[in-house]
């Protein structure tokens, strides 16, 4: 599948119908997820702040998933020198930064009424902040280097270095004693969350995933057009 899409023409044909399809799926799942979110009763401990969980947790999962996509595309671009992989990495970074920003801000807004503080330097929060800084560093490095191939190589190396942080973010609540709660969905023995909260959470997570799929494909299409426009400008100048 990935090999087949490595051809830019084939990718453009695929993404032309896949991007709007993902967009429609995201809107439909988002509507169902929000409906389930606002018919769910307040939690016995967290009361109405449980609503923040439905938008915070998917953003946090997406911040890791998108970085995984960024690192994977960077690896392919670095090793196989494939321009579409570079475009995919470049396209993923701003979206990942957006999701990570949301994870940090909604987490802070959830933390204040439940923990009594906006921020604490515990392992989970700090490692997610480091993840956000890797995204910003990637975007800054990309903007700082004019030569596109050099920029792609430097950004790919930075993205791969940053990938070391992914297991740290994921296992931080297990490895260290943190104020942030441990995993209550992806854990041995199954989720501890009741279905009335688990269902909207999973549906909204799929909505976030579909939204990322749609936006990523459109951004990669934009990158393909950008490269084509620059090639046409060079041809016209030469």
């Amino acid at each position, binding site marked *: 599948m990935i090999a087949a899409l490595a051809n830019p023409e084939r990718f453009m044909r695929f993404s032309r119908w896949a991007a709007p399809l993902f967009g429609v799926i995201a809107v439909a799942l988002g509507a169902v997820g929000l409906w389930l979110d606002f018919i769910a009763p307040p939690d016995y401990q967290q009361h109405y702040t449980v609503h923040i969980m439905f938008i915070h947790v998917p953003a946090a999962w997406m911040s890791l998933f998108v970085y995984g996509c960024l690192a994977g595309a960077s690896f392919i671009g670095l090793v196989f020198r494939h321009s579409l992989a570079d475009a995919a990495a470049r396209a993923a970074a*701003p979206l990942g930064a957006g999701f990570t920003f949301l994870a940090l801000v909604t987490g802070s807004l959830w933390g204040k009424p439940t923990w009594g503080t906006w921020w604490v330097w515990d392992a989970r929060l700090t490692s997610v902040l480091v993840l956000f800084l890797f995204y910003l560093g990637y975007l800054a490095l990309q903007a700082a280097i004019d030569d596109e191939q050099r920029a792609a190589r430097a950004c790919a190396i930075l993205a791969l270095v940053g990938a070391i942080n992914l297991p740290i973010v994921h296992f931080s609540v297990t490895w260290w004693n943190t104020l942030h709660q441990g995993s209550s969905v992806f854990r041995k023995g199954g989720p501890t969350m009741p279905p009335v909260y688990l269902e909207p959470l999973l549906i909204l997570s799929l909505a976030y995933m579909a939204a990322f799929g749609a936006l990523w494909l459109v951004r990669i299409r934009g990158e393909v057009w950008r490269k084509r426009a620059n090639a046409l400008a060079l041809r*016209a100048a030469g």
Partner: protein
Amino acid sequence: MLDFDAGKYAPYVWTAYGLTAAVFVLMVADTLARARRWRRKVRDRETDKTP
């Protein structure tokens, strides 16, 4: 039945939802604007409107 009451936590809950909506709108708008801009440039350059 839909229940939008957030009690005394309303400022936290609605700020979180408002920011999430704003970031999504920003990501969608920026993504579409970039794609349209480069697509238009390709078309212009293919038809030699822009040198």
